[in-house]
């Protein structure tokens, strides 16, 4: 019945019932994720400044590193969008290329973030240092863990794409994982703004 309902123009991922259900379900999941990150942000704001005499953020944050991380993630969100664009043109090659770039950017983001964390810990600011740093590490760390999960997940989907080609099922998975990836960029925008930018300016 699916085939009858939809014009051939309909993107593959929407062509099956499962596809439509899962995409809507994933949006709702993203709603839950917003609530989750809001709670972390609220925690961060409340604990902001409670450094208990330990290191304070302004002296550790650096514009350069943060900007690199931001542009890596922004760009990866863009390339991820291009990947979907190619998927919708049924170009498996374009899809692989752009997803590959996305993953590479994501990995370098993670690399920079880990480097940043190690640096902070080296400077005496760790999860256990003070309430402020607990909040910092858990907020950014939760985002980082999401990015890591995203990379692993997309990698698994790539394997499935290789095995099965573009089908309503695989394209649904790609599309949903792209939603996830963009969403992580959305979260990062707020981390960039509220944690780093305001942390350095205030």
């Amino acid at each position, binding site marked *: 019945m699916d085939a009858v309902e939809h014009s051939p123009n309909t993107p593959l991922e929407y062509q099956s019932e499962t596809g439509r259900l899962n995409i809507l379900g994933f949006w709702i999941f993203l709603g839950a994720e917003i609530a989750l990150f809001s709670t972390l942000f609220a925690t961060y704001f409340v604990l902001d400044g409670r450094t208990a005499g330990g290191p304070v953020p302004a002296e550790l944050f650096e514009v350069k590193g943060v900007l690199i991380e931001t542009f890596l993630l922004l760009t990866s969100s863009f390339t991820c969008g291009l990947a979907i664009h190619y998927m919708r043109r049924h170009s498996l090659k374009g899809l692989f290329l752009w997803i590959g770039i996305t993953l590479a950017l994501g990995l370098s983001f993670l690399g920079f973030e880990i480097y940043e964390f190690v640096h902070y810990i080296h400077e005496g600011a760790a999860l256990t240092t003070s309430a402020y740093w607990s909040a910092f590490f858990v907020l950014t760390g939760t985002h980082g863990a999401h990015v890591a999960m995203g990379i692993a997940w997309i990698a698994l989907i790539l394997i499935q794409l290789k095995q099965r080609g573009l089908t309503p099922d695989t394209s649904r998975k790609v599309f949903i994982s792209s939603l996830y990836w963009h969403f992580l960029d*959305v979260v990062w925008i707020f981390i960039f703004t509220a944690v780093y930018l305001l942390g350095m300016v205030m």
Partner: protein
Amino acid sequence: MANNEQTHSHFPWSHVIGFALSIILTLFALWVGFESGLSNTMIVVVVVGLALIQATIQLVMFMHMTESEDSKYQTGTILYALFIAIAVVVGTIWVMSFGMSHM
């Protein structure tokens, strides 16, 4: 159902524009923070506003929130989530900032 993908077969304009906008907005936020000389409160307001705009760009231009037959549910979910986010963040800050005044 809304099939927005005329872009299927040609250049992905919306993605490129979205990308350019997000870079510009990021740099602009940076400028507001460091160079604009606004008061702290204004900086917070402007910068958070810019972040919200950027988020909207991602949601609409990259994530195709408004495409598909379920776009109203999807948009509704995100708007409700925004309500929750504001209630949680603003509410918590408001409620937890007590006691300070007593000291």
